[in-house]
């Protein structure tokens, strides 16, 4: 899956980039430090018809809009009340709605949230919607969102009803760089600004839900991280849990060149990257009591570096250790070393590291 159009850089340009980026300390083309991000412009809550939305614009002109919409849906389950083991033979075929299921049973299955209640769709200009890259990006963002169970469980209204969340990601500009960080940060902001209508209190547990039509009374999907969290109003099953400061996850794109590690790579830097890794992190929801928040790692994926597609690359075993050699740069064969990989992850997740910095920066938008 070629992430972008192969870079249109000459061999000497590539060689120059690679040399300056593998120096210690490295020199990036735009004179940033290895861990600094490009400036970005963001606004939230701009689409009046969506439950939450955000627009993010990077300095290189790439721009994305995310709209989040919620729909109330009936929870269907294939279990029948009496024949739990009897239903096994039919697999998923049945589709019988459960009318009176034990409350305990729902809690036992992790209070019911399911990953498929969250639908992520990515739209990129000039790409078919079944293109490998679009699928890959959508899966990756979805994977991060469902990894820490918080969002799914938050969507439960009661035993019979739940929210279905549609997250529609629209990339407005042509994909110049690998658009993953842009899309993930925009999704993060959109989810933070998402409000769902508040249910009317005082109904029976499994009644059809009624919602307050006052938009000002709507409850945020992710409760604001104040020490006094309101009791979770959207869901009865969750209200007795301890307050969490869960935030939506973000995905960072990290590249390594030689033994140097860079965050937020530009188009030119991606063209000479030895390895590209996407790391999904979130502030860990369990450590609400801790002062220094730990980050939890939700997903890691290696991405095919575009440098392997560039024209001149012929490094084989015979010439190992020829990276210092003068001349035309050639893309490295093989993969990334384990210690470099470990360092890349470590820089994202350590306390006071890049991940924490990005998360706290995004906090300012809400």
């Amino acid at each position, binding site marked *: *899956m070629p992430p972008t159009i192969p870079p249109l850089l000459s061999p000497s340009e590539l060689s120059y980039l690679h040399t300056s980026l593998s120096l210690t300390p490295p020199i990036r083309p735009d004179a940033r430090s290895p861990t600094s991000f490009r400036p970005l412009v963001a606004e939230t809550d701009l689409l009046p018809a969506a439950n939450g939305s955000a627009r993010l614009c990077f300095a290189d002109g790439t721009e994305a809009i995310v709209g989040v919409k919620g729909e109330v849906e009936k929870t269907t*389950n*294939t*279990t*029948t009340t009496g*024949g*739990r*083991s*009897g*239903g*096994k*033979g*039919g*697999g*998923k075929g*049945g589709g*019988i709605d459960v009318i009176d299921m034990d409350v305990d049973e729902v809690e036992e*299955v992790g209070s019911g949230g*399911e*990953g*498929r*209640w969250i639908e992520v769709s990515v739209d990129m200009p000039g790409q078919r919607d*079944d293109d*490998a890259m679009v699928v*890959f990006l*959508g*899966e990756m963002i979805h*994977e991060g969102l469902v*990894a*820490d169970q918080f969002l799914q469980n938050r969507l439960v209204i009661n035993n019979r009803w739940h929210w279905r969340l549609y997250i529609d990601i629209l990339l407005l500009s042509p994909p110049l760089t690998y658009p993953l960080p842009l899309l993930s940060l925009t999704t993060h902001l959109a989810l933070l600004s998402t409000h769902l209508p508040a249910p009317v209190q005082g109904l029976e547990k499994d009644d059809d839900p009624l919602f307050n039509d006052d938009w000002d009374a709507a409850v945020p999907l992710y409760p604001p991280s104040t020490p006094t969290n309101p009791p979770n109003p959207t869901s009865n099953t969750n209200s007795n849990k301890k307050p969490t400061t869960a935030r939506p996850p973000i995905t960072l794109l990290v590249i390594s060149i030689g033994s140097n590690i860079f965050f937020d790579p530009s188009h030119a830097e991606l063209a000479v990257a030895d390895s590209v890794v996407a790391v999904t*992190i979130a502030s*860990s929801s369990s450590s609400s009591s801790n002062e220094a928040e*730990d*980050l*939890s*790692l*939700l*997903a*890691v994926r*290696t*991405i*095919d570096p575009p440098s*392997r597609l560039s*024209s001149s*690359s*012929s490094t*084989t*075993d015979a010439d190992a250790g020829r990276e210092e050699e003068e001349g035309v740069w050639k893309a490295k*064969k*093989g*993969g*990334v*070393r*384990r210690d470099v*990989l*470990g360092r890349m*992850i*470590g820089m*994202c997740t*350590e306390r006071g590291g890049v991940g924490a910095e990005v998360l706290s920066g995004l906090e300012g938008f809400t």
Partner: protein
Amino acid sequence: MDRRRVNGPAGGTAPPVYASTLTGKTASAANRTRQPNEIRKIFVKTGLTPSASGSAYLELESSPATHHSKSLTNRTPALKLTCTVHGPRPLPRSAPFSPQLLLSTRVKFAPFAARQRRGYIPDASEKDLAAHLETALRGVLIGERWPKSGVDVVVTVLEGEEDCPLEALAEGNQGGRIGGWGLMSILSGCITVASAAVTDAGIDCVDLITGGVAAIVRQPSAPLQLVLDPCPSDHEEIVAACVIGYLQSRDEVTELWAKGNISPSSSGKETKPLCFETLVDLAVEAANGARRVLVEAIKESTEAKLESSAVG
């Protein structure tokens, strides 16, 4: 009322629900009989498809049958994959010049691979697997030796794994379109079998790549535990898992896919902390195990080829 046709009943009908014939509520399908650091037995054979330039077949044994697994619904699935490699062959005339071998990968579940039927049109999870496989393979192929040509790597999953214990499956709790942990073992198998097939096709690689999986699992009434090569139907809950495409002789990783709730660093108390580094190390261990089998299989098929060429 149309009297020329057989009409269904006017009202809706409910499908009949039969009482269970299984004794015991859940018969505890979730039990692993292997040691935590023991991988499943692997069978690899190369060169089974004569029409392809390279091919391989890989099978992972299913868990041994126990008393409650006589029923068809309780049978634990095995993993069976075949891979064919077509090429290197010239690109069509219309294609633009490519200085190196163009790799295209495809992973397809056979319609009968899992409990649920899969259609013929690749769905999102199959495309996702193919993207992962491509990342894994592109790092090892030495593509410059075949300019202007392409190679197709097609993996067919003949029998895949269920994503979760069977009780949960019956509850319809399958976790949606992707995100099944079973996909991770399948990807690891895909990497290994594709590596064998590429070798069989005689395409130059920098090393033999093999896949390995490790996971953090929660067993009933036990703390979190690290296991190699998890079979999703053996465990009550998988907390996190990691697939790796590993080059042993270079100690490098071309493909890494981890997901779940992983604590990034060790807290330093336990001997085997449940952190990311340990998970990767264990996945590498599993990949090394697979490599031993792969090397033997390739040696065997090469000897067979030599013999047949000596006779012919």
